């Protein structure tokens, strides 16, 4: 069973976000780039499937040169191959362009499943996988927290508000992984060494017949930090917690009208 895992590089979730000079993108100075945490669940699931059933895991990313680090990380954790579509400097958050690039990159490959994280931690769109599925004319299941993979179909448990949908889907299909699906492994030293010898196929985005930036589907006008919050009212409750609780409830009821 061959699995494609689409990964994206995002700023470490502990990053402090600063606005770049153009006022439209983040200041990348000092940013540590990591594989988006949700993509780690997708990769882990693909590794477990191929370990149980045979086949290969191919990690695919669309991004600038630095994005190769994400692919090396996937290879170190056990992915067999990697494909780097080089580009994407100017298309931050343009989900449909990303989906088109990935669809073009996957078009002639053979696979039984395409796995993605349920959103890129940062752009927080959560759209590429569904668009990719539509472009490849495949069914999709998002937000998956449990997967049972058979020979020609799978049962995916999809998290919704207050419950789970149990979805039966034929292979091949596109899924997005949610936290809870599995426990992602770390790369061991041996894997990191082995990753250095594994191939990374490089494709220029123009070679896929896609011209970047000329026909965007989403256009960023500005990026801003949220307005600074005014200092809140702090009640000292160590000596008399009961009085503090009463004061808090009174403020919430009368001043904030919160309940």
């Amino acid at each position: 069973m061959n699995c494609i895992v689409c990964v994206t590089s995002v700023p470490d979730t502990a990053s402090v976000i600063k606005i770049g000079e153009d006022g439209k993108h983040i200041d990348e100075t000092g940013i540590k780039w990591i594989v988006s945490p949700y993509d780690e669940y997708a990769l882990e699931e693909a590794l477990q499937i191929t370990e149980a059933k045979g086949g290969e895991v191919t990690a695919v990313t669309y991004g600038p040169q630095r994005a190769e680090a994400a692919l090396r990380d996937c290879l170190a954790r056990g992915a067999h191959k990697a494909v780097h579509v080089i580009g994407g400097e100017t298309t931050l958050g343009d989900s449909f362009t990303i989906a088109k690039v990935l669809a073009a990159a996957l078009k002639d490959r053979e696979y039984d499943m395409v796995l993605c994280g349920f959103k890129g931690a940062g752009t927080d769109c959560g759209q590429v996988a569904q668009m990719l599925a539509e472009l490849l004319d495949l069914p999709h299941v998002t937000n998956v927290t449990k997967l049972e993979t058979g020979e020609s179909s799978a049962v995916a448990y999809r998290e919704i508000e207050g419950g789970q949908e149990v979805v039966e889907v034929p292979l091949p299909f596109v899924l997005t992984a949610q936290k809870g699906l599995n426990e992602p492994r770390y790369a061991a030293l041996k894997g990191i060494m082995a990753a250095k010898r594994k191939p990374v196929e490089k494709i220029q985005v123009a070679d896929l017949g896609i011209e970047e930036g000329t026909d965007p589907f989403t256009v960023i006008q500005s990026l801003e930090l949220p307005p600074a919050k005014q200092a809140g009212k702090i009640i000292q409750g160590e000596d008399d917690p009961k009085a503090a609780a009463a004061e808090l409830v009174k403020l919430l009821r009368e001043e904030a009208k919160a309940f």
Partner: protein
Amino acid sequence: MAGILVFIEQRDGEVRRASLQALSEARRLSDETCAVIAGQGIADAAAKLGAYGASKVYVADDANLALYSSEGYTEVVAKAAEAAAPSAIFFSATALGKDLAPRLAARLGVGALADVTGLAIEGDALVATRPVYSGKAFVSVDTGGKRPQVVSLRPNVFSDEEVGGSAEIVSLDGLSLSIRAVVKEIVATGGGELDVAEANVIVSGGRGIKGPENFKLIRELAEQLGAAVGASRAVVDAGWIDHSHQVGQTGKVVSPSLYVAAGISGAIQHLAGMSSSKIIVAINKDPDAPIFKVCDYGVVGDLFDVIPPMVEEIKKLTA
């Protein structure tokens, strides 16, 4: 601006409040608001939508649409879009809306703006504001002149408003439903508890509650406030509560009108997930906890001493 088509989500024939919020926002932005609804036995739900400003409701009532299907529902909305020729299509950014909107957008050959928290009209197009990096920044974004503009609206940010009126019901026929991913059943989890993603009030517990058994304290306060129970990543990773309760950058990003953080110090990832809440309350022993920097009201004290009298006070006031 020109017409807006709003996808209306229902579960068991009950229209989701988040969908009414999207419909009301569409009515505020446009003089020409239509709705589309899919399911089985949904005539009553469809009839209600006129009161929220829809002038026309496209209805796809079909046994194959009784439960959600991305492919089936995409077909329905695409058909309605063909009939209504709207300049924008709204969804609510629920689990369903977030699944459906991008597929529909790709079907129509356009992009989509996800989980927006603000909408404005510039010229004859919508400009959306949406949080990125889980709310550490906000981006203003448009669709570069492409139509229709597909947008999903974050629940609980826009208000629903009954305005009276009735809608013309249009039945959508001739659907070609080829559904490969089939929802076999819906399993309720969490004993029917309110989900943080759609709650208007959330009470969250963190490491300060010391053990899973003490979530009962959080639950008691939540119950008094009609709130959902949230949690920090630390306690989810420790296995004290299911991850569906996790609020933060790798959990759910929420914007309730009241968020109470008890025993949560406020890691940057947690703050990102809840900082756009309208009123934030922090209860923590450590006066230097970062959560106190973002809260509107804070109590420095032991949550085990503060929460029980809070519960009593609220009981008194709401009795």
